[in-house]
């Protein structure tokens, strides 16, 4: 009896195995829901001043979940080493619903369409240099980079050209009133999960493509927000953020090359306010014009159409950026950066980047070397960078 039962089980098992193996892969139809894991990573060798170090860079997984043809989730983490610890930051996590051809609704934490660098150009395999332009990094940026809120965006056709638009409402930046550290009075803190006031920042970007081949894009961005905390003496303090950007990418047949020109100018203006400041054990009221700006201009050229396999993968790039923060503030500084580099593209999304960079910094920070008679400190830092970056 047991032998018969065992035999029946074996026969059933063999039949099931035969049935499964006989199924063609094409018979397995995919559903509406799709998941993809993408992302990027970079690491390298950096020499700056007296330091020479291999750096782990970061690993940024991007999670894409497409629920159906209208609904998609995107989320990105940044995983990096900070000393002996591993830091994990949420870059963005949001849901997009495609209302129609011209309108997409997005909710959650998203990269703000404030210019082009933070939203599009910052990933390591897209950024043509190993560093960010001054004032465009995720830490201590001049202008907003990401926030929590709601956005509508899309493209509107005009004849055979188009306009792209984004309009959003977010928590907005928060003013540091200097109560905890008077040296930080007047600074703005971006990307806050809890708002310091009931007001919401309103902003957007408009981009136009004057040429029908979309080789040139001009953009104008703006944001207006209450930055002071409600029910305090700073609740009437407002911030105005503006940016202009340009992108020009075109093949130049005469040079058998592709030229790529990018630029962006950010300006941040915060209403004047009175900050209590302790100087030499005497309380003082400090007021200053709270105006900061930064810009960069970048040009790259790649002989992508010449016949030599190695040379067509090489790209030459140069960038200049300059940052100026509120001059009379405790954190006032002026810095400029020149970076030149040569990239070698292993494929369309993997690159070796070699660059040399000169940073000149002038600050009221006494920790910098080279004080001049005006009480400013200046420093020049040069560095070599060899990075690899991979997108996947």
């Amino acid at each position, binding site marked *: 009896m047991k032998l018969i039962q065992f035999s029946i089980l074996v026969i059933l098992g063999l039949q099931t195995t035969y049935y499964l193996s006989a199924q063609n892969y094409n018979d397995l139809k*995919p559903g509406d829901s799709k998941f*993809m894991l993408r992302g990027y990573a970079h690491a390298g060798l950096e020499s700056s001043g007296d330091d020479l170090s291999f750096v782990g860079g970061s690993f940024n997984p991007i999670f894409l979940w497409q629920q159906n043809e209208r609904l998609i989730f995107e989320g990105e983490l940044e995983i990096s080493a900070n000393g002996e610890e591993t830091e994990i930051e949420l870059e963005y996590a949001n849901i997009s619903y495609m209302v129609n051809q011209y309108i997409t609704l997005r909710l959650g934490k998203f990269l703000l369409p404030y210019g082009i660098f933070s939203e599009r150009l910052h990933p390591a395999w897209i950024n043509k240099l190993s560093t960010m332009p001054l004032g465009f990094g995720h830490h201590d940026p001049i202008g907003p980079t990401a926030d929590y809120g709601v956005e509508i965006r899309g493209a509107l056709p005009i004849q055979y050209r188009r306009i792209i638009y984004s309009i959003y409402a977010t928590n907005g930046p928060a003013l540091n009133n200097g109560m905890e550290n008077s040296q930080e009075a007047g600074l703005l803190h971006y990307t806050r999960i809890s708002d310091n006031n009931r007001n919401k920042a309103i902003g957007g970007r408009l981009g136009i493509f004057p040429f029908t081949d979309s080789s040139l894009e001009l953009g104008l961005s703006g944001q207006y927000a209450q930055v002071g905390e409600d029910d305090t003496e700073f609740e009437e303090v407002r911030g*105005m953020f503006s940016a202009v950007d340009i992108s020009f*990418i075109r093949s130049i047949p005469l040079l058998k090359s592709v030229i790529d020109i990018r630029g962006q100018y950010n300006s941040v203006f915060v209403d004047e306010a009175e900050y209590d400041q302790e100087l030499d054990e005497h309380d003082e009221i400090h007021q200053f014009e709270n*105006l900061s700006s930064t810009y960069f201009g970048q040009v790259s050229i790649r002989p992508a159409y010449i016949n030599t396999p190695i040379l067509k993968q090489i790209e030459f790039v140069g960038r200049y950026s300059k940052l100026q923060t509120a001059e009379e503030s405790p954190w006032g500084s002026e810095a400029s950066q020149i970076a030149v580099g040569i990239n070698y593209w292993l494929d*369309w999304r993997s690159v070796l980047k070699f660059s040399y960079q000169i940073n000149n910094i002038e600050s009221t920070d006494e920790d910098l070397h080279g004080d001049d008679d005006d009480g400013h400190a200046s420093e020049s830092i040069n560095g070599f960078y060899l990075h690899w970056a991979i997108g996947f």
Partner: protein
Amino acid sequence: MKINLLIKLTTIMIFLIGLFAMSGCATSSDAMVEKSGAQLWGENCARCHNAPSPSAFGDDEWETIGSHMRVRANINNSDMEKIVNFLQMAN
């Protein structure tokens, strides 16, 4: 001072958009031809990064990537469908 600068920049932008809209009425004969998926692939991808190789992903993956890029790059649905169809045929 900064509000004046913003107003000036906004005025310039509105002027450019108006000029841009009016110039759209006098497009060249080349521009009147509807763009192919390959053209749209080359023009839109290059706005941020190198144009991806069609063989990099499978058909299902291109659909998901297309949805993701449609949001990121403000590409309308009809253009993105052409781009995805081109990539699926070419991979």
